[in-house]
């Protein structure tokens, strides 16, 4: 689920963040403020909104997604999206204006220049994906609310840790915590290795 949410948020967030970072338009400051607010959005609040939207009386109730993995993917995507968008935007904006000028001076069209800048910002884009991954793999409130922590269906490592801690199964909770940490470490190490290669 985390992987799917990460892929969706990357596919939507990275290009949108790049477009915002490359563009100048009225209200860009407001969009930036919204994105930064979104980056600090409490996951449990996202969970609450998704819960209300997907509940039987909510606007998306007919979909029947509440307490299913789909609901968890929706919540995780919403949590991850501002991170991928905002950090991609920042990394694109941080590419030196002198380099942008040089790219144009070499004869790039607007589209070619935008692509080159996005490639230059790829380390920042990777960092955005890493941050989004960290944000959603460690998240518990939203997935608990919208997934319901149903065994074999919507129970994930974080919600299982909560449950086992509540029932006094501390050793199991600790073991799951270590597995979660190891997974997060491996995923981050893989992305950082990729980042290092890109930097060579």
């Amino acid at each position: 689920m985390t992987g799917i949410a990460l892929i969706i948020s990357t596919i939507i967030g990275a290009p949108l963040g790049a477009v915002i970072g490359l563009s100048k338009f009225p209200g860009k400051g407001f969009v930036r403020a919204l994105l930064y607010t979104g980056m600090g959005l409490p996951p449990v609040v996202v969970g609450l909104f998704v819960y209300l939207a997907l509940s039987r009386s909510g606007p998306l109730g007919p979909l029947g997604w509440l307490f299913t993995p789909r609901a968890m993917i929706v919540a995780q995507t919403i949590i991850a999206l501002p991170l991928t968008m905002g950090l991609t935007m920042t990394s694109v904006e941080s590419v030196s204006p002198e380099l942008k000028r040089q790219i144009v001076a070499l004869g790039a069209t607007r589209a070619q220049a935008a692509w080159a800048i996005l490639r230059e910002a790829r380390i920042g884009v990777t960092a955005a994906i890493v941050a989004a991954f960290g944000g959603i793999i460690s998240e518990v409130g939203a997935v608990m609310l919208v997934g319901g922590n149903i065994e074999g269906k919507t129970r994930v490592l974080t919600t299982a840790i909560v449950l086992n801690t509540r029932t006094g199964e501390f050793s199991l909770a600790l073991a799951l915590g270590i597995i979660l940490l190891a997974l997060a470490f491996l995923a981050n190490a893989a992305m950082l290795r990729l980042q290092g290669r890109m930097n060579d």
Partner: protein
Amino acid sequence: MNEPVYQLQDLKKEYAGRIVTDLECLDIWRGEVLALVGPSGAGKSTLLRLLNFLEHPTAGRIIYQGQAINGSVPLAVRRQVTTVFQRPMLLKASVHDNVAYGLRLRGQRVDGQVHDILARVGLELLARSAAHKLSGGEMQRVALARALVIDPAVLLLDEPTANLDPYNIGLIEDIVRQHNRERGTTVVLVTHNVFQARRLADRVGLMLSGRLVEVADTHMFFDAPSDPRTAAFVRGDMVY
């Protein structure tokens, strides 16, 4: 050198109401090396950006190859001109891919040209190296190779050797001179180094406070300047 590549007429560029470049008239001739000297803030780099169509003039006209440039510049025109800046702004890529970049932008095949131009700048053995891991002089030679490989009609050099050692300065000057002679490339060089202007240029112009004080053949500029400010600048006096 019988026809102008650029004809600049009453050219002005303002930033926030401050005029930074204000040229009454300047013709730049095909195949010449024109050096622009003057203190920082004289408007030399702004002029280069105007010549590369990176900025629009606030007023006046740029006529390029007989064609008045107004508003949006055709891509085909823009691609005839390129700049090597003071800082070698290289992509996070190999030396080879940096040099091939301009060719790829134009959809041209990257065959032997990249190797040939790297050999010319003495970097063929570093083709696969990461460009940003090179020394300052090597990076500037990559930037120069990247500009030359597209065979521009006009090469603009914005203090390309400002931070380099004499060895690299000599190499870059040799490459520019050779390319100018072999390909007939028009070169406009902005430099603080009057000795470099003397070594490289056919004509030299002095800019002060956005204005062109004097432009003359190199030997006249240095040996018999017509303006007292040029004479003072050439002597090494402080001129603003």
